[in-house]
C-alpha cells in the first residue's frame, strides 16, 4: 500500500505535522495487554465495588435500581443496534429509526404529552434544555422560577447552563409538608416569568399538586414545566400532560438501563404540539419511500446544530439513542400490565417500609405529603456517618442529604423499588435501628 501511495514509510505520511512539533518519545503508558490481562485488571477494579446485586440498596435520588427483564440485555447486545451509526442514511437504519419512533410514542403516552424527542443526555441537562426552550417560546420574559423540590443537581445544571445568559433564576421554597409552597410560588410568579419548573415526585419524594401549580402559572402566562426523575411514578400517577404542562422532561434510566455509576442515562423531553419546532435534539418522523412503503427518517432537522449552527435549538448532536432503544424494549416487555404492577409494588413496599420505620421512636418523618417510592427520615444522628457504618455491614441505607443540604445533616433519603424484598426492608429497619 505504501508503494501505491508513493511513500517509503508510514512516517512520511505525517509530513504535514511539522517535525519540531511531533512527539519524540513514546506515550508514557503501559505496553499493550492481552485479553486475559485486561480482564484480570478490570475485574480486580470491579471487585473493589460493592453492587446492589449482593448488597441491599435503598439509594434513589435520581437513579433507581429496577427489575430489567433478561430480554433487554439480550436484544440490545445485537450489534446491529449497538454498532450502528446515527441514522442520517435512513435507508440502512430503519431498525434504529423504528425503535426510536416507538420510544417517542411510549414517552408521550406516559407523560400524556403530544411530542417527545429521541433522547437527551439525562434528566438534569433535559431540565436545562427545557428552560432554554421556554425562553425561545416566551422570547421577552427573563425570569425562571425553580421549585426547591427539584433534584439539586438539576438545579445546579440549570444554573450552569444559564450562567452566561441574561436570565434571573428564583427559587421557590418548600412548605412543611414537603411539597412546593403554593402561596410563596403565587407571589413569585409575575408578568416577567417565562416558566415555572417543578419536579414531581420531587427530590424529597413528595408528590406535588400539579393541578394547583398549573392554575398559578396559567394566570400569569408563564410556561408550566414538569420534571420527572423517577419515570416509574408515571405507571401509577397521571402524566403531567393531564394537568396542562407545556413541557415535561426527566430521567428515563429506570426503564431498562442499569445504574452504571451515574451514566449513560436517558434524558427525555416532551411538549405540546404547538411548540414542536422549538424542541432540542433529534426527532424521528414517519413518512413514505419512493415505492409507497412506510418508513422513518430524522426530521425537522433545521432546528439542529448542523444546519442552524449558532441559532440551533441546542448544540446537542450525539444523544442517548441506545439507552432509548433499551427503554423501548423494556417498556414493550413489561408492557401495560408490567409497568403498572411494578409501580404498584414500589408504592406498597415504600408504604410498608414507612410503617416499619415508624415503629422506631427515634426516627422522625419531616415531610407529611404522600410519596411514590422515596421519603426522608430524620435519624437524629449524622446521616453520612451512619450510612458509612452500615455500608460496611452490607446495606446501603439511602442518600445522606447533608451532601447538598447542610441543614439536613441528620436526614436520609430512602428509595424502594420492586427489587427490594420484604426481608431486605426488614434488614434495613433493623440495621438502622441498631445504630440509633
Amino acid at each position, binding site marked *: 500500500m505504501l508503494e501505491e501511495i508513493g511513500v517509503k514509510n508510514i512516517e512520511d505520511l505525517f509530513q504535514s505535522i511539522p517535525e519540531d512539533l511531533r512527539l519524540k518519545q513514546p506515550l508514557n503508558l503501559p505496553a499493550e495487554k492481552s485479553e486475559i490481562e485486561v480482564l484480570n485488571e478490570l475485574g480486580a477494579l470491579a471487585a473493589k465495588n460493592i453492587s446492589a446485586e449482593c448488597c441491599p440498596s435503598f439509594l434513589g435520588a435520581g437513579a433507581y435500581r429496577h427489575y430489567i427483564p433478561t430480554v433487554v440485555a*439480550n436484544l440490545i447486545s445485537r450489534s446491529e443496534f449497538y454498532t450502528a451509526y446515527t441514522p442520517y442514511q435512513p435507508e440502512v437504519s430503519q431498525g434504529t429509526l423504528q425503535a426510536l419512533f416507538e420510544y417517542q410514542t411510549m414517552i408521550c403516552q406516559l407523560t400524556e404529552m403530544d411530542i417527545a424527542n429521541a433522547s437527551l443526555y439525562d434528566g438534569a441537562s433535559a431540565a436545562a434544555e427545557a428552560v432554554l426552550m421556554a425562553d425561545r417560546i416566551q422570547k421577552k420574559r427573563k425570569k425562571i422560577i425553580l421549585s426547591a423540590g427539584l433534584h439539586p443537581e438539576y438545579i445546579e445544571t440549570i444554573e450552569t447552563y444559564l450562567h452566561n445568559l441574561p436570565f434571573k433564576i428564583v427559587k421557590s421554597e418548600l412548605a412543611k409538608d414537603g411539597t412546593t409552597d403554593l402561596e410563596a410560588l403565587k407571589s413569585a410568579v409575575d408578568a416577567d416569568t417565562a416558566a415555572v419548573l417543578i419536579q414531581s415526585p420531587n427530590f424529597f419524594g413528595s408528590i406535588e399538586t400539579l393541578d394547583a401549580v398549573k392554575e398559578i402559572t396559567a394566570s400569569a402566562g408563564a410556561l408550566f414545566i414538569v420534571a420527572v426523575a423517577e419515570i416509574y411514578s408515571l405507571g401509577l400517577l397521571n402524566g403531567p400532560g393531564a394537568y396542562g404542562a407545556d413541557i415535561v422532561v426527566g430521567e428515563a434510566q429506570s426503564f431498562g438501563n442499569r445504574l452504571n455509576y451515574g451514566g449513560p442515562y436517558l434524558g427525555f423531553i416532551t411538549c405540546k404540539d404547538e411548540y414542536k419546532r422549538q424542541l432540542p435534539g433529534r426527532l424521528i418522523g414517519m413518512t413514505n419511500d419512493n415505492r409507497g412503503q412506510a418508513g422513518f427518517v430524522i426530521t425537522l432537522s433545521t432546528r439542529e446544530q448542523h444546519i442552524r449552527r449558532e441559532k440551533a435549538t441546542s448544540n446537542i448532536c450525539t444523544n442517548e439513542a441506545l439507552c432509548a432503544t433499551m427503554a423501548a424494549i423494556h417498556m414493550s416487555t413489561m408492557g401495560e400490565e408490567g409497568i403498572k404492577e411494578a409501580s404498584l409494588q414500589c408504592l406498597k413496599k415504600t408504604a410498608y417500609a414507612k410503617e416499619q420505620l415508624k415503629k422506631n421512636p427515634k426516627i422522625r418523618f419531616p415531610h407529611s405529603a404522600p410519596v411514590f417510592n422515596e421519603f426522608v427520615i430524620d435519624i437524629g444522628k449524622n446521616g453520612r456517618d451512619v450510612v458509612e457504618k452500615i455500608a460496611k455491614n452490607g446495606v446501603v441505607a439511602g442518600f445522606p442529604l447533608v451532601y447538598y443540604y447542610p441543614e439536613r445533616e441528620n436526614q436520609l433519603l430512602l428509595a424502594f423499588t420492586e427489587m427490594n424484598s420484604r426481608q431486605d426492608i426488614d434488614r434495613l429497619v433493623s440495621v438502622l435501628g441498631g445504630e440509633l
Partner: protein
Amino acid sequence: MIKGRSGLSFTEDLIFNKSCKGAVGYSLPPLDVPDTDASSLVNPKYLRNKPIGLPSVSEVDVVRHFTKLSLWNYGVDYGLYPLGSCTMKYNPKINEVTAAMPGFADIHPYQPYSITQGALELMYNLEKALAEITGFDRVSLHPAAGAHGELVGMMIVRRYLEDQGDPRKKVLIPDSAHGTNPASAAICGYTAVELKSNEHGRLDLKDLEAALDGDVAALMLTNPNTLGVFERNIKEIVRLVHEAGALVYMDGANLNALLGYFKPGENGVDVLHLNLHKTFSTPHGGGGPGSGPVAVAKHLSPYIPKPVIGKKEDGTFYLDYNPPKSIGRVRSFMGNFGILVRAYTYILTNGAEGLKAVAEHAVLNANYIRTKLKGHYHLPYDAETLHEVIFDDKEQEKNHVTTLDIAKRLQDYGYHPPTIYFPLIVHGALMIEPTETESKEEMDGFIEAMIKIADEAKNNPELCKNAPTKPVVGRLDEVGAARNPILRWKPEDKN
C-alpha cells in the same frame, strides 16, 4: 465486492399494533408486603385510572419484533463505515464484557466511597491516561458527548476570562467547523465570527490576525481540520491568539490521526475536548451514548466541572463536590461511566505502541483510498490529508449525478455512504475516513464499488438517480416528513 442478493428483510409493524389483550412479557414475584390500597396512600385524583397505552405483548413477540428491526440496520459489525469525522472504528467486544461487570454496571453513583473505590480508581487512571495522550494537566470525564464537552470547554474559557477581568464577546470559528462549535459558543453568550479557510483548506493567518481584537475570547480550532488537513501553522496560530489575550480551544474529533504523534496540550492549546465514541472505540449505539471528556492546561484546571476526583494521601479516592472555582455541572452525577469503562479497556488493550499504530494505520488507510480514488473523483483541495480525505461530485455533476445519488448508489453495493455535504465549504462534499480497523481487502471492495459508481455516473446515470434499490426502503420523502410531521403513533391509528 458484494454482489446483490436479498436477505430476510420483510416489513414489521409498530409494536403497538401487535398488542393482544392479556399478553404479558414479564414476571415479577408476588407482592410480599401488605397490599394497601393505592388510593389510601395517594390522593385518588392523581392516580391514573385510564390505560397508559403501552404494548401488551409476550416475550416472544418482543424478541421477534426487535430482532426483525435489527436486521434492517447497517452496523460496524456488518461492514465498513467510511464516515469522515466520525471515526467509525471496530468496537472491541472485550469492552462490552468489562462494561457489563456487575461491579461497574450495578453500582449507584451516590454509594459511599468506601464501596466504590474500584470505580473511582478507574476514572482516576483514565484521566491520567487521557492527560498523557493529549499533553494536558487535568481531564474532566463529566460531559456526556462531544458537543457537551465543547460547551464545558467554552464555559471554562469564559469563566477564566471573567476572572481575568473581561469575558469578552466573540469566538472565532473556521467556516469548515462542525455546527456544534458555534452552537456551543452561543450558549456561552458568545457571538460566533466566521473565519475563511484558504485555497489549501487551512486557516488563513492574515485573516486570523485581522480578526483578533480585544473582544475575541477564543479561537475554536479543529486539528486536523474537517478536511483532514493538519493546521501546520499551529505554533503561529497559538502565538497570535495568546498575544491577543484570547484562548485556543481545540475540537478533538479528529484525534485519531494524532495519537502518539502530536500532543495539543504541549503545543499551546488551552482546552481540548475528546470523543470517546470516536477515537476510543466505544460503540455508536445508533446515535449515542457517547462521552466527551475535556482536557485543560494548568491555568484552567480550577474551573473543571464538579465533582472532581481526588486521591488522598492514604491512596484512597474520593469526589470533591465543591471545588471553589468550578464552572458547576452540566449533567447529573459524574459522567457516562459505562462509556468510560469501555474507553479505559481500549487504552489498556492497545498500550502506548498500539495507540500510535492506530494513528499510523488510520492515516495509511485514508491515503490509500485517496490514491486509488483520485483519478475517479474530484479532489477539491491539494493539501496532504491525514486520516480522512474529501472528494466532491464535480465530475459526476456533469451528468447530473450528485453526491446524494452517489451515496445512495453505494448502499446498493453493500456499503454505508461516507459523510456527505459536510463541511459546508465544499460543495457536494464526500468525506471518507476508513479508520485503522479496515483491512486492505475491505478497502479494495469499497474502492471498487466507488469506481463502478463513477463509471455508472458517466454511462448509466439512471442507476444512481434511482438508487438505492437493495435496502428495505428506497429514498424517503423527507419533504413530506418535514411539512406534515408524524412524530408518534396514536391509539386512534390502531388498525
